[in-house]
């Protein structure tokens, strides 16, 4: 069962890959950049999903994929002109397919309403195309590899199921024909299933090597006429018994079971040999060339065009029923039952094999596009930790060497320099392991844009840039939500309706531009639209109305724009399905700040708005300002710092009993004595002797932190204090400094909150008592 589960998992992993390829291909189509190769790729993707889905009896998925595939086939054979409607239909179908896959993966029942509607649309497209489509094949015989499709689709698509009884006479083989030739030909015409009738097979001793003993019963479903079938046998009609009956489509025989067994390379080889009639098969059959060995040659399931009637096919009485569905096979990528023929004859007489579209089988689709391995994240993190340690020790060692009186020019010192370079490089490389291109987030956007645009009734074109920019995996994972929200906002609030756009002299279709790039050690993601821009009077009015700003406040344009990040602010006059749930941009801002990032907005009336997110490249490392407070060294996250200053005595005012305020350009901010608050000092420090660091918190409030001095800026490796200790109020983590000592990293938000609460609540004594 585990093996089955593993195969299933592989199937869904591959599905995900296929879906990406399908969508990428379709998008290329939309942009008019598609060539035949692209269409084939899309087709293969859908086909593979269908094939695998059939093996797992995911009927809804199979049904949909089949319809989708049929439409794509029409496109590929150039029977459909890909106009805009068509491209949109395929894109939506890809979305629906992805939903169905997700539903199947999670074992949920898919919401079929959407897919059913699409199904009808897809079938409408197929119906209008040439009915004869199926018959005219070109080696690309992409027919379903799967179960029950005929029963699901046969009737609607105007398909018929035929039962063909075919029994070759000795003469047929004597005239250098082979049954396989006909079966293969039939397989190109529709959904096929073959049973080998071995009734007439005598005992081994009585076998006449030149006689024909086998008959075949073929069930064939497709849009074809009995005449088409008869035509296949045109030249051998006299050398065989042939009976063609049109059967009803819901014939129970039309469906067959696919059993999963362990894929076996050897079997695969034999199967391919059989199907392709390549040189391989001659080798494979060679062993069976002698009569004596016939009875032992088990598992060679079907005949071969190039071998005489005494081919392996007849050698194995037990291999009585060979089911075979037609259709081609997209190489070895499918986790489907194509390799499942088991050499033990008694075990599974019913086997499904894909018929060989040689072109496909021979071509390793999508050859290694960059080799990857999957590694447990913990291992990577451990490696990162160790390298961090190495860096620290290397620094310590160099310092000791200098202390020991080594000159900078001596060999040892040069060696240290080289070592330093190496360790830095090592650290960068190790960090790069965790980095991933933002593509994984970006590739979900086209779908989002499509859906949002549809609901909002707007026409949107998405342009993405810099999708290969690499960021830490954790950040990528957390990037998705804020990005989704911002794009929704851009479409829902930013872009105008097509009519308004025309009035404003812009193209009907709005553009949302998402770009990623690295700037000075951070990743910057911009989401821009070419909409109306922020309506500042409206924003200001709402903010005043909601009591977020005082009516008297004089605000700059920039400040007004940033009002949209205030908690509880929502400009949507009506609550739409998309945005305006009251959790607007403030949530976005918070989630970005929790990643150590910032988000800003720039807007130009009539021309559009642009959100700019700036994020650290990794969460394992933080840009920090190293400061001292009391006798201790502390790290303040650089992303929080607005500016630093040396206060004058006149700027600091007492406020109430203990609290002090600092006047920064006529704004009074609370002055937080870090050393005192963390208990590194008993008495308040002298502000004029220290440095004030102005910080901005997640809610946009500012505060002033008083520290004794600034040592400098540095990237520090973040270590958790919670694993072995627990939460420390005002401290977000710790790091290890160059001297090997632990330094705490401030959690500025928490620190400020703490300072607001009564100082006593942080008293060690109370904590101890609570314990």
């Amino acid at each position: 069962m585990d093996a089955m589960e593993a195969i299933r998992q592989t199937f869904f992993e591959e599905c995900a890959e296929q879906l990406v390829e399908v969508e990428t291909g379709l998008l290329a189509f939309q942009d008019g950049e598609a060539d035949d190769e692209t269409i084939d790729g899309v087709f293969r993707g859908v086909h593979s999903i269908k094939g695998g889905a059939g093996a797992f009896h995911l009927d809804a998925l199979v049904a949909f994929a089949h319809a989708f595939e049929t439409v794509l086939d029409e496109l590929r054979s150039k029977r459909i002109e890909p106009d805009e409607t068509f491209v949109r239909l395929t894109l939506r179908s890809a979305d629906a397919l992805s939903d169905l896959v997700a539903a199947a993966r999670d074992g949920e029942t898919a919401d079929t309403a959407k897919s059913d509607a699409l199904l009808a649309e897809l079938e409408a497209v197929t119906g209008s195309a040439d009915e004869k489509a199926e018959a005219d094949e070109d080696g690309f015989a992409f027919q379903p590899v799967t179960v029950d499709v005929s029963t699901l689709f046969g009737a609607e698509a105007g398909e018929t199921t035929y039962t063909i009884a075919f029994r070759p006479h000795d003469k047929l083989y004597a005239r250098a024909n082979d049954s396989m030739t006909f079966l293969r030909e039939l397989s190109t015409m529709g959904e096929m299933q073959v049973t080998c009738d071995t009734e007439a097979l005598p005992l081994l001793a009585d076998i006449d090597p030149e006689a024909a003993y086998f008959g075949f019963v073929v069930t064939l479903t497709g849009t074809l006429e009995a005449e088409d079938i008869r035509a296949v046998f045109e030249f051998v009609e006299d050398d065989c018994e042939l009976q063609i009956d049109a059967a009803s489509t819901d014939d129970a025989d039309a469906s067959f079971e696919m059993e999963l067994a362990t894929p076996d390379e050897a079997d695969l080889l034999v199967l391919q040999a059989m199907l392709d009639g390549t040189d391989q098969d001659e080798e494979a059959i060679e062993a069976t060339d002698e009569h004596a060995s016939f009875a032992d040659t088990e598992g060679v399931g079907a005949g071969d065009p190039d071998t005489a009637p005494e081919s392996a096919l007849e050698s194995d009485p037990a291999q009585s029923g060979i089911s075979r569905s037609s259709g081609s096979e997209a190489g070895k990528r499918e986790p489907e039952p194509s390799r499942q023929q088991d050499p033990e004859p008694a075990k599974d007489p019913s086997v499904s094999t894909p018929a060989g579209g040689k072109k496909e089988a021979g071509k390793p689709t999508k050859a290694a596009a960059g080799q990857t391995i999957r590694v447990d994240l913990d291992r990577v993190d451990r490696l990162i930790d160790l390298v961090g340690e190495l860096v620290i020790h290397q620094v310590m060692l160099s310092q000791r060497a200098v202390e020991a009186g080594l000159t900078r020019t001596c060999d040892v010192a040069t060696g240290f320099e080289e070592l330093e370079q190496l360790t830095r490089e090592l650290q960068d490389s190790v960090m790069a392991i965790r980095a991933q291109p933002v593509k994984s987030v970006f590739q979900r956007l086209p779908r989002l844009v499509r859906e949002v645009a549809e609901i909002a009734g707007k026409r949107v074109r998405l342009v993405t840039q810099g999708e290969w920019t690499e960021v830490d995996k954790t950040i990528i994972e957390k990037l998705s939500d804020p990005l989704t929200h911002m794009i929704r906002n851009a479409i829902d609030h930013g872009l105008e309706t097509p009519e308004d756009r025309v009035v404003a002299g812009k193209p009907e279709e709005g553009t949302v531009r998402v770009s990623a790039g690295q700037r000075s050690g951070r990743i910057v993601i911009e989401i821009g639209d070419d909409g109306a821009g922020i309506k500042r009077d409206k924003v200001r009015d709402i903010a005043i109305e909601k009591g977020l700003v005082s009516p008297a406040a004089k605000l700059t344009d920039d400040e007004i724009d940033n009002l949209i990040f205030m908690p509880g602010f929502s400009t949507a006059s009506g609550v739409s399905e998309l945005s305006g749930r009251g959790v607007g941009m403030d949530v976005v801002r918070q989630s970005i700040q929790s990643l150590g990032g910032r988000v800003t907005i720039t807007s130009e009336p009539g021309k559009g708005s642009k959100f700019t997110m700036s994020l650290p490249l990794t969460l394992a490392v933080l840009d920090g300002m190293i400061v001292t407070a009391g006798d201790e060294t502390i790290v303040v996250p650089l992303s929080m710092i607005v500016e630093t200053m040396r206060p004058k005595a006149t700027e600091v005012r007492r406020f109430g009993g203990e609290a002090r305020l600092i006047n920064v350009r006529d704004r009074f901010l609370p002055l937080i004595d870090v050393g005192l608050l963390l208990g590194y000092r008993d008495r308040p420090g002298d502000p004029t002797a220290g440095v004030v660091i102005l910080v901005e918190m997640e809610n946009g409030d500012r505060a002033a932190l008083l520290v004794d001095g600034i040592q400098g800026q540095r990237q520090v490796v973040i270590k958790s204090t919670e694993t072995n200790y627990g939460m420390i109020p005002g401290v977000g983590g710790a790091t290890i400094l160059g001297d090997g000592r632990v330094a705490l990293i401030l959690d500025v938000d928490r620190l400020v909150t703490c300072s607001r609460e009564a100082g006593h609540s942080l008293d060690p004594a109370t904590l101890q008592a609570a314990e």
Partner: protein
Amino acid sequence: MPDTLTQSADQNEPRAGGALQEFVAFRIGAQEFCVDIMSVREIRGFSPATPIPHAPSFVHGFINLRGTVLPIVDLAQRLGFAPIEPTERSVTIVALAHGVVFGLLVDGVSDILTVDESALQPPPDITGEVARRFISEVMSIDGRMLSVIDVDHVMPQLAGAA
């Protein structure tokens, strides 16, 4: 075997078959203590720690143990004695309990003892003594008295979890 079982069953915690246990013995002031060797990860010299804000007084601070931020408990203070004055002979015992690693600052490690469990006895019930909370057993070896520290209860958040 049955004999051992009856013997150990009377008062001590029942343990599988009279096995020998190993303990790391150490000093705090003049008193001797020990911990089960299975919970000891390593023993290292004293290194200065970074104080932890708002921490209980017995938490000495954080040290860097090869990249891990390791909290250090001043075991003397935890047991209600005067704080340890770190000297060159002060030692940090790195212990592991419930997946949490922490250091115990003690005055010095004396030896490793192999003790038959019959030598272990429950601590006398002296209420009001802080140390009583962390001592699971006492033992008498060659006229020395050692108290077995239950590391599970040394770290406050573990005591809550357990």
